[in-house]
């Protein structure tokens, strides 16, 4: 498939700009969920369809996109909770795409996940101590000074009282529970953490605290993050680089500032224009997309965004745009007709697509 070749070209461009060996390297990552009717397979939901990206040590990559675009599926494949249909995941120079449990054991310690729902991600019948110690217990690791001491260190690290060792999850608030989940993810001293919408289930006032905690941890422990979110403000606050996903594909990937100030892909522009701005009144500058996201069972030919794009032509329907550098932009964009100029000055004719 052309995703792989495109990806290699893309990576060449990327690597030239960003020095250093990537910690995580994803090529052509694909997940298709078969849809069955009775015993026969009836097509597949193409949840993730050929992703290419790299994460370097200590770097945070934000994955943004609307609901159902495959962000969570991607995150789960990275920590191998889901088996990729095709493509490859290289972690610290080793191919981990199809490893079994034993082969993955070493990897698990370097690659952890933080979950979205702090109410579902903690076992209600276990004490906090037991929850945080679980990764150590499962991997039969006895840290120097004992498990309890390590757990209490971790609790302190995430801003919880180490005396809460013996408490149960139901005695904590949502923000505190998420801190427990973070402590559990840190127990094995990972190098990379996949954070699957870690704050979207939390109160806005708590979101900032958890994000700041993650950022402090990232700085102090030199962690790399794949940060999945649909909140663009959160991503901008937290991530070095941003990948925008649409219908199972990355449409634009680049440095945070480039993406936020000079986005090239029309979808990124539409997404950014949807950030509520309290300083302006009315729908000024808002790009309204019409229609719904097409079904991943049968995605559109060529560019997947063309059905909702105001710039789409016949060319978009026949040829899939490669994810590559366009018009000397700092990012990689998968669009035949990239936008130029800073955001806020729509160059196309979004008004023509707007219904009033």
């Amino acid at each position: 498939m052309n995703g792989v070749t495109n990806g290699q070209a893309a990576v060449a461009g990327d690597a030239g700009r960003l020095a250093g060996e990537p910690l995580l390297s994803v090529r052509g990552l694909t997940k298709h969920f078969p849809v069955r009717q009775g015993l026969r397979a009836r097509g597949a939901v193409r949840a993730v369809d050929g992703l290419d990206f790299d994460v370097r040590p200590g770097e945070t990559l934000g994955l943004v996109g609307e609901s159902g675009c495959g962000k969570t599926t991607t995150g789960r494949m990275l920590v191998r909770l889901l088996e990729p249909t095709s493509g490859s995941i290289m972690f610290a120079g080793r191919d981990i795409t199809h490893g079994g449990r034993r082969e993955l054991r070493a990897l698990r310690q370097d690659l952890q996940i933080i979950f979205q729902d702090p109410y579902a991600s903690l076992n209600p019948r276990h004490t906090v101590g037991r929850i945080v110690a679980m990764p150590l217990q499962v991997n039969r690791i006895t840290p120097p000074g004992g498990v309890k001491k390590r757990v209490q260190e971790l609790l302190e690290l995430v801003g919880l009282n180490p005396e809460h060792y013996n408490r149960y999850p139901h005695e904590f608030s949502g923000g505190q529970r998420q801190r427990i989940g973070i402590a559990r993810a840190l127990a094995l001293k990972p190098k990379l953490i996949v954070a699957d919408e870690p704050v979207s289930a939390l109160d806005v006032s708590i979101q900032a605290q958890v994000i700041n905690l993650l950022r402090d941890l990232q700085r102090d422990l030199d962690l790399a993050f794949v940060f999945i979110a649909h909140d663009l403000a959160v991503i901008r606050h937290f991530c070095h680089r941003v990948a925008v996903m649409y219908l199972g594909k990355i449409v634009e990937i680049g440095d945070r500032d480039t993406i936020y100030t000079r986005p090239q892909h029309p979808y990124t522009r539409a997404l950014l224009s949807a950030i509520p701005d309290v300083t302006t009144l009315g729908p000024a500058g808002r790009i309204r997309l019409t229609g719904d996201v097409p079904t991943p069972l049968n995605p559109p030919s060529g560019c997947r965004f063309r059905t909702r794009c105001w710039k789409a032509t016949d060319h978009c329907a026949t040829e899939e745009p490669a994810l590559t550098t366009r018009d000397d932009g700092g990012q990689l964009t998968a669009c035949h007709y990239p936008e130029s100029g800073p955001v806020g000055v729509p160059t196309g004719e979004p008004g023509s697509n707007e219904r009033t």
Partner: protein
Amino acid sequence: MSDLSHPPPRTPAADATISVPEIQAGPEPAGRAAEFVGRSPNQLAWLRLKRDRTARASALTLLVAAVVALGAPLLGRLTGIDPTDKFVDRLNDFGMPIGYAGGISSDHWLGLEPGSGRDILMQLVYGLRTSLFIAFTSALLASCIGVAVGVLAGWARGWLDSLVNWLIDLTLAFPFLIFALAVIPILQDRFYSDREAPSPAFRVALIVATFGLFSWTYTARLVRGQVISLREREFVDAARAAGAGTAHILLRQLLPNIWAPILVTVSLMVPQFIAIEAALAFVNIGVTEPTPDLGRMIFNSIGYVASDPWYTLFPGLTIFLLVLAFNLLGDALRDSLDPRSTR
């Protein structure tokens, strides 16, 4: 510094029983460390159960029954009466006990059996033993099978799950009593000839096996449903992401969460078995003589119900109290384990 200034969420359970002390940031003085002892969901349930008056009353009843059943030989030595002792001299020419109310006296507190002249109290106490033993063993057996099958089906899903569901439907389609009526005599004939009497232990084992074979379905369905809903929870994914194997996930992560409903089904299964065991004895396929049995006592007493109603009354009342106490305790247990359920 953080969201720690927010009070912890107050679950109705926590509110009802204990006040959650404010969680404070920063290290605590060493002297106050003892206060930070979390209460597990089980401990909360236990607190609720202790406050339930019905539960206390029924638990006391059952405790008395258990102590009496366990201490039956001691009681026999104390009174100097064996359950098989026949006091024929205390019966009149028609085989009826001499005296009022079925021959109640200072020697025989609940009177004597008409016909055989055995002491009713000793029969009752030893019968309680038989009933409780059969009911508990069967409940244990049925639960073990049910949990194993349910976990397997819920975890494996796919064709194994379909097979188990099909098996459960098949088992439920069998009319239990008719099956027991047919199978128990047939199996007995297989192992014992007409001439030799089957050993009491054989009958008991047969009854326990029949109960176990027919009653695992409810637990299996319950456990299967629980496993299916719990396996999708993120804490299971978290364990898997940490590298946990299936054994850890099933035993350490899932099982602690399905303990409570299993316990409730066991506590409701026991009285059911007591009643059915009595019913089996009543249709004469229960425990055989000379093992004392409550159901068989009632069966024997029916012939004397007009002349000596006391003989029927005592075993009937015992079964009634036992079943009632178990059912009430089971209900109280369910309420305390799941405070949100309303009756």
